Structures are given as structure tokens and as C-alpha cells.
């Protein structure tokens, strides 16, 4: 594992350090200006905040300049992302576009699609959601049943997607669907289409989280027309396209930092002179955070295409999929360790609407604790993937 990485040499260069300062200052100023009080568990959809992030050039920042990007390094994007997560900034309106659909379009999209969507994402004006899971396709994504039938000039799509975060607020979503039902291998015959969420035949219904929060949706597609120019990449290559960029996605700071503000609040509550038990717990949390971040940072730097690479898409020659799965597996457990440590050291009960930040964050994270080890690849699926790499083919 991590054979390509020299951990001892890994450090933030001066430019990234400067950027770190700028993002911290930006977040302090904007949180105050927007009177924003962060909540944990569900990243919030905040179009105004997203536009302000975009104005600083921090959405699609690794993309080519001609598509609205800044051609900055993955490391710099890493710095921006982790700063946002450290204070639970409301990034949902640009999250999927910046992390997933933008890079997919860069790699597989047509010139017209790139021109149309990328600058709009980078300006913080266009939000994407992801249409992957279905009622009978969770971990086994290749079993999706949503069907697209060939019609003149496009496709007619019918099916149902679930767990579609922010579909009720986003402009469009990437839909993984079956374009040839008879393909021999079930990984064949899948394609990715862009469907606008206000298109005729699209119905969005909320799926409420157990605390009443509305972020998830189910999206019904009833004979929705998708023109040919909204097909992403090649028809039949959807599986390859969806799985090709998992390394960055699985190893990013969002896999170990979503409860971090609770750690900060815990430290505030513990004060300057903690007892031995609290000090030990805080020290362990810090050590694990530091170690996870070093691994995540290593993947971001190693996958950076470099000055001569194809901007905005990871270095194709490096396979860190297994390492990324390890980071996600350990990272999502770490997020729970913060919750447990905070809960056991707290002398108050979790209170959803408490004025006190610590008590509120504790309540928010406890109910969301099951989510992180499920979304983006369950613990069990990831571990099978890791083991396959370790063991090789067994007969």
C-alpha cells in the first residue's frame, strides 16, 4: 500500500499555505456576513455562500482556465476542501459539481457540454445532483434498472432514483441508466445522461431523515426525453466512467472530517486543563486525525496531473483505488470516534436545538452517525475490495 508515496517528504508548499490563510479569513468573514451557524450531519445548500466561494475562484479550481477553472493543483483544492469541512461550511450547492460531475465532464464530456456546464458550475450558478442509487440498487450499483430507450434525436428514460441529495434544489442530475438491456455483461450497456430536474416527466419527492431533515429525495423519471447532446461520454461505457475517478472521491477530507467541528467544540468545552481521561481522549482523536490527513493528502498529491498533465483529471497512470478505500473505511469510523468521545466526556445530554454549539453538534452527529459508513461504498463493500487487492485471485 502507498508504495508510490514518500510520506516523509509530504508538506504543504508556500502557495498552499498562503491559500490556507486566505480560506480561513474568507470563512471567518463570510460566516459573520451571512450570519451563518453551521450544522453537522447534513451539508447545507446555500446558493449565496456558493456564489461567494465561486467569486474567489475556489470551485472547479483545478480545471482548465478556458472552462472557468484556475488550473491550480489538487493539493490546493485539498486545502480549500478541508478548510470548508473544518467549520462545516454550507457547500452542498457546489459539492457534486465541483467534485464529481465537473471532473467527469472534463474527461468524458463533449466540447459543447464543457462550454455549457463547467463555467456555470465554477461561477456557482449551476448545481448538479447524482442519480446513482435505486430502490433495488444500493451497494450493487451495476444492477440499476432505470431504462433509456432510443428515440429520434435522443432517449426516453423511465425509472426511479433514490437518496438523490438536493434534487429538490439542484438544476440537473447525472443519471446512470441502462441503454441496452440485452448486454451480456451487466457492467455493459450502462450509460450516463444529464437530465434537467425541471424537465417534463421528472418528479422529485422528499425522503426525510430520521430527525426530519430534508436533503435526500427520490426522483421518478416517467418517459423523460433526453436529447443526444446530453449523453456523457460513450453509450455503453457508463460503468467505466462512474468508477474511474473513485480514488479522489473516496479519499477526500469529507471522508473523515464531517464531525470535526464537534471535536473543536469538545476542546472548547474541555478547557485549558482537562483531567487525565479527557486529555487522553483528545490526544487520541488528534493523533488519528493527523494520520488520516497524511494519507488523504498523499493521495491528492500523488494523483495530481502536474504541470504537463491533463488539467482537472487525475494522473491516469497511478492506481490508488485500494488506498482510497482504506482511507474511507478508517475515516468514516474515525468520524464516529469523535462522536463517542464527545458523548462520553459530555456532562450534558444531546439537545437538537441547543444554543450551545457543542450540545447541538453532538445531537446532530449522533443521529447521522450511521450514514458515513454507508454512503459512497459501505464498509463491507470497501473491505471486500481491499481484500481482493491483497489476496489476488484465489482458486
Amino acid at each position: 500500500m502507498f508504495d508510490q508515496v514518500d510520506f516523509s517528504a509530504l508538506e504543504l508548499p508556500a502557495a498552499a499555505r498562503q491559500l490556507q490563510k486566505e480560506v480561513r479569513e474568507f470563512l471567518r468573514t463570510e460566516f459573520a456576513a451571512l450570519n451563518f451557524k453551521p450544522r453537522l450531519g447534513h451539508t447545507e445548500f446555500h446558493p449565496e455562500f456558493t456564489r461567494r466561494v465561486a467569486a474567489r475562484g475556489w470551485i472547479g479550481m483545478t480545471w482548465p482556465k478556458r472552462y472557468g477553472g484556475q488550473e491550480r493543483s489538487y493539493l490546493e483544492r485539498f486545502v480549500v476542501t478541508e478548510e470548508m469541512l473544518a467549520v462545516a461550511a454550507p457547500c452542498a450547492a457546489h459539492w457534486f459539481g465541483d467534485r464529481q460531475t465537473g471532473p467527469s465532464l472534463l474527461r468524458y464530456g463533449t466540447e459543447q457540454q464543457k462550454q455549457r456546464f463547467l463555467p456555470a458550475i465554477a461561477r456557482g450558478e449551476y448545481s448538479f445532483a447524482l442519480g446513482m442509487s435505486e430502490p433495488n440498487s444500493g451497494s450493487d450499483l451495476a444492477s440499476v434498472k432505470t431504462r433509456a430507450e432510443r428515440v429520434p434525436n435522443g432517449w426516453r428514460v423511465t425509472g426511479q432514483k433514490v437518496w438523490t441529495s438536493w434534487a429538490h434544489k439542484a438544476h440537473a442530475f447525472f443519471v446512470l441508466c441502462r441503454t441496452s438491456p440485452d448486454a451480456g455483461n451487466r457492467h455493459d450497456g450502462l450509460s450516463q445522461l444529464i437530465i434537467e430536474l425541471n424537465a417534463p416527466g421528472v418528479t422529485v419527492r422528499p425522503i426525510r431523515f430520521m430527525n426530519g431533515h430534508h436533503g435526500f429525495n427520490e426522483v421518478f423519471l416517467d418517459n423523460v426525453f433526453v436529447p443526444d447532446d446530453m449523453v456523457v461520454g460513450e453509450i455503453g461505457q457508463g460503468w467505466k466512467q462512474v468508477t474511474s475517478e473513485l480514488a479522489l472521491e473516496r479519499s477526500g477530507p469529507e471522508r473523515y472530517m464531517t464531525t470535526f467541528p464537534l471535536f473543536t467544540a469538545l476542546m472548547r468545552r474541555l478547557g485549558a486543563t482537562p483531567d487525565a481521561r479527557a486529555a487522553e481522549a483528545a490526544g487520541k482523536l488528534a493523533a488519528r486525525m493527523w494520520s488520516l490527513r497524511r494519507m488523504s493528502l498523499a493521495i491528492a498529491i500523488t494523483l495530481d496531473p502536474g504541470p504537463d498533465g491533463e488539467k482537472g483529471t487525475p494522473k491516469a497512470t497511478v492506481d490508488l483505488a485500494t488506498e482510497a478505500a482504506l482511507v474511507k473505511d478508517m475515516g468514516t469510523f474515525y468520524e464516529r470516534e469523535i462522536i463517542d468521545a464527545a458523548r462520553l466526556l459530555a456532562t450534558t445530554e444531546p439537545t437538537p436545538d441547543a444554543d450551545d454549539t457543542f450540545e447541538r453538534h453532538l445531537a446532530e452527529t449522533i443521529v447521522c452517525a450511521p450514514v458515513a459508513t454507508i454512503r459512497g461504498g459501505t464498509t463491507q463493500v470497501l473491505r471486500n475490495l481491499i481484500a481482493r487487492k491483497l489476496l489476488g485471485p484465489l482458486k
Partner: protein
Amino acid sequence: MNDVSDVRAMLVESATRLFADQVNAKMLDAAKQDGWSAALWKIVEEAQLPLVSIAEEAGGAGGSLSDLAAVVRIAGRYAAPIPLAETAIAGWMLASSGLKIPIGPLTLAPVHGEKITARKNGARWNLSGEMKRVPWARITGHIAVLAAGPDGDIVACVESSQCKITAGQNLAFEPRDDVVLDNVAVAAGLAAPAADGVNHATLRERGALMRSLAMAGALERALELAVRYATERSQFGRKIGQFQAIQQELARCAGEVAAAVAAALSAAGAMERGQNTTLAVAAAKIRTAQAAHEGALIAHQVHGAIGVTDEYALHHSTLRLWAWREEFGNEAAWAMELGRAMCAAGADRLWPALTSD
């Protein structure tokens, strides 16, 4: 790739070849009786591995602390029964205080912060005090001792034969000896005021870093053995590696190993750059000790009964993991220290401290 990483790659390759060729079951078994392998030491010393990271002008082999880190990780992977890390730390204490590094295996003392008194006797020094569980003391030629002189700490190069040494051992049969200095005379040229940065705290930090690196290596070995066993052993008509229950455990073990490697090597880099060293070393010792705990138990579980015998190789790694995680402070001690420091700095410093690499 740049020159530094090319040189490192060559060093890693040659060190790996050396340990892979030299260390074998017979040597490791013999070391349980003899305390070490003098034959291996001779070869490793000839290859100048123990003095990597000490400048050539000071009698070292040159290279960086990260180079040494790479070597210690490999030595840990092969369970090399020699005082490599201790010689490196002792060499650093002596060289940075302007003293000559004697040939032969060295160790450092004290490792538990005991006070050793140094009195002037004309141009010479007399050292007195008792030190617990000094690594490898009985097989070394010299001990680099940090002692309290009348005008501050001194570093003294003490001949091991001048000390009263009571043999002891750790879980892995490595010598951990009690050492008594009873007015031991040290010639003028063999002692000097301790250099800036050589004190009880930094000795403990270096020791903790070295054990973290060795643990990372030992964990890699334990995982290798477990993976190999899972592909070879059949039960219920299939390779045990085909059972998801085993696969899940191996995956968890791989995570612990990766975290240990990342933490230990990162801490070496931090110490080399003098950046946030205390946090990095504490984090590395905590994380590698935790990984040692989880990783060793998973490796044994995958092996079933065969893994717990003294004939099978796994115990060379796991006994060391269980010994090393305690040495130079275990995960609880370091966590309390780190937690106190971070609380004292305040919640607003938490995130900046974690990201100040």
C-alpha cells in the same frame, strides 16, 4: 523524480536486500538466547546503516533523518536483532555534542528520565546513578549517557564494561538491562555539554519515533504473513482467504498497517524539518501503537493456532510489536501529553496545529 528520492530508493533497495538475505529463522531463534546477532551487526555496520543521518564530517554515513527512517522501518520488518535505532540515537547525541562516535554497537541512556549525576574530577568526569531497562546495554561497547553536571546537562560516552549491568529482556527477548553507574570515570575528551536540542524530552521523542518506524515495518511483515497464509491454508474445502469473514479482517489489518506507515514516516519528515515535531511524534507513537494492537491480533486470528507457536515466523513480529508499543511511552502516555498540550493551546489552535505541516 528528484535526486533525493533516487538516493532513498537505492538505500531502501540495498537495505531490503541486506536484511532479506541475512535475517533468517535460525538467526532469530539464536538471538533469543544470545540477545542479538553479532554476525548481522557486523554486516550492517559495514554497510554503515546505523549512522545514516549523521554527517560524514562527524563520523556518520551522511543522509537525512528520513533516510534513517526508511532503514529502521526495513529493519523492523525483518525483526533485525541488533541495536540499529539505538546506535543511531546515541551517535546523534555524541556527534551533535561534538564527541567522537566509537565503533561498535551503542545505546542511549537513560530511557526513563532517571537523573544521572556528573561530577567534575579534574579534567575528568565521574558519573553515578541507576537506570532501568536500557535497551541492549549488555551487548554494546559504549553507552551515550545524558547526565546532569554542575553547569547543566552533559553527554558522556561511557564504556559499557565500566557499568554494573543486570540482564533483563522485553517480550521479544531483546536485552533491556538495568544499568548502574557507580562513580564511573569518563575521560575529558569523552564528555561534553549536551548540544542544544539534546535533552530528556528529545531523547524520548527520538526513541518514540524509532519505535514507531520499527512497528510500521513489523506490521507490514505481520500482514504479509497473514495474507500469504490466507492464500495457502484450506478449510471446509476452500482457501480460507475466500471467506468474507477472513477478507474483512485482512482489509482492516491493511488499514492499520497503512496508517502506521503513514504516521511513522510522516513524523520522521516532520522531525527532519523541525516542524511541529512534538505533535507529529506523539501522533505517530499513538497511531502505530494502536495499529500494533489491532494488527497483531488480526494477524494471529487469521493464522489460527499455528501462529502462536515459536516455530512459526509470525511471533518474531508480534512479540516485538507488543514490546515496542510500550517503549518510549505507550499510546496512553503520549495521548495524555498531546491532549494536555492541545487543550492548553486552546480549541482555536486545534485545526491550525493539525494542519501545520
